[in-house]
């Protein structure tokens, strides 16, 4: 099953470059097998170089850059083997407003292939959704679901 792993690694690597480039609007990203002679055990290094910056270790990326790089990798794996649905819990929390826009644009595109359920506090992400569920704890300790705003309702 070395061929299987190698093929999936190469497929994800290709997609990762593509998705990274879209999310960062430029820049370069790579995945490196640290021990190519031992594919089934090897660790995987991530190289991320935002537009106009020098290559540095990923530990010196900013909080938002780390999150966006991780999202690019997750989405790359997702594009290679789509799952019927995907649930994201505040993946957009470290992102600034313009990165939220890039993140949501990509989700919108992928949502023609899979269902997305996104938990968020960001208005940019709420506005992009087709349906919106509000959860409340008016009675402390007890969760209830409130209004559901559907896309056509939001358009009204």
């Amino acid at each position, binding site marked *: 099953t070395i061929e299987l792993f190698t093929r999936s690694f190469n497929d994800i690597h290709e997609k990762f470059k593509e998705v990274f480039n879209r999310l960062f609007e430029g820049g370069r990203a790579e995945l490196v097998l640290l021990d190519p002679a031992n594919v089934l055990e090897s*660790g995987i290094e991530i190289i991320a170089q935002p537009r106009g910056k020098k290559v540095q270790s990923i530990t010196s990326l900013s*909080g938002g850059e780390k999150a966006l790089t991780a999202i690019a990798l*997750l989405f790359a794996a997702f594009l290679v*083997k789509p799952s019927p649905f995907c649930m994201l819990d505040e993946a957009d929390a470290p992102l600034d407003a313009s990165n939220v826009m890039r993140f949501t644009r990509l989700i919108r595109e992928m949502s023609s292939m899979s*269902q997305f359920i996104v938990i968020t*506090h960001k208005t940019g992400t709420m506005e992009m959704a087709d349906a919106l569920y*509000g959860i*409340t704890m008016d009675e402390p300790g007890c*969760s209830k679901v409130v209004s559901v705003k559907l896309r056509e309702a939001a358009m009204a």
Partner: protein
Amino acid sequence: MQLKSLNMLGFKSFFEKTTLNFQGGVTAVVGPNGCGKSNISDAIRWVLGEQSAKHLRGDKMEDVIFNGSESRKPLGLAEVNLTLTNVSGLPSEFGQYNEIEITRRLYRSGESEYLINKIPCRLKDIRDLMMDAGVGAKLHAIIEQDRVKKIIESKPEDRRFLFEEVA
């Protein structure tokens, strides 16, 4: 396959029967801190067979059963139903259904039940069903809160799961 609806009863902070209907496309879940949003993601992970209490932010599996509040007593049962539609590529015995309902129950006694379309089954049956439907056994399609950055901060050997799941 698509998620059609999620029902929760006595699961974490959802003490009364609560229903969420899902459309195609993108559904956003919003609300103040501590209102129960992440508990919904835990409910989906749980009904699909999650066995680790720690992965559900608890110490023991009973922690998923509604534990009471200022004004309500603890319940003795947690139940979650997840209804799926357009489920294609399934083995024969499920093929004739257009909708599949997966149910998981846990009683405070520790007894647990799994059901598919109200027929008792084993955890393995639910796992097999989800594998056939394209949802990996390790539920990588459910990304918990604060998990995104951890992928970058983890050791190179710990990043293999993404690639193995796809292979």
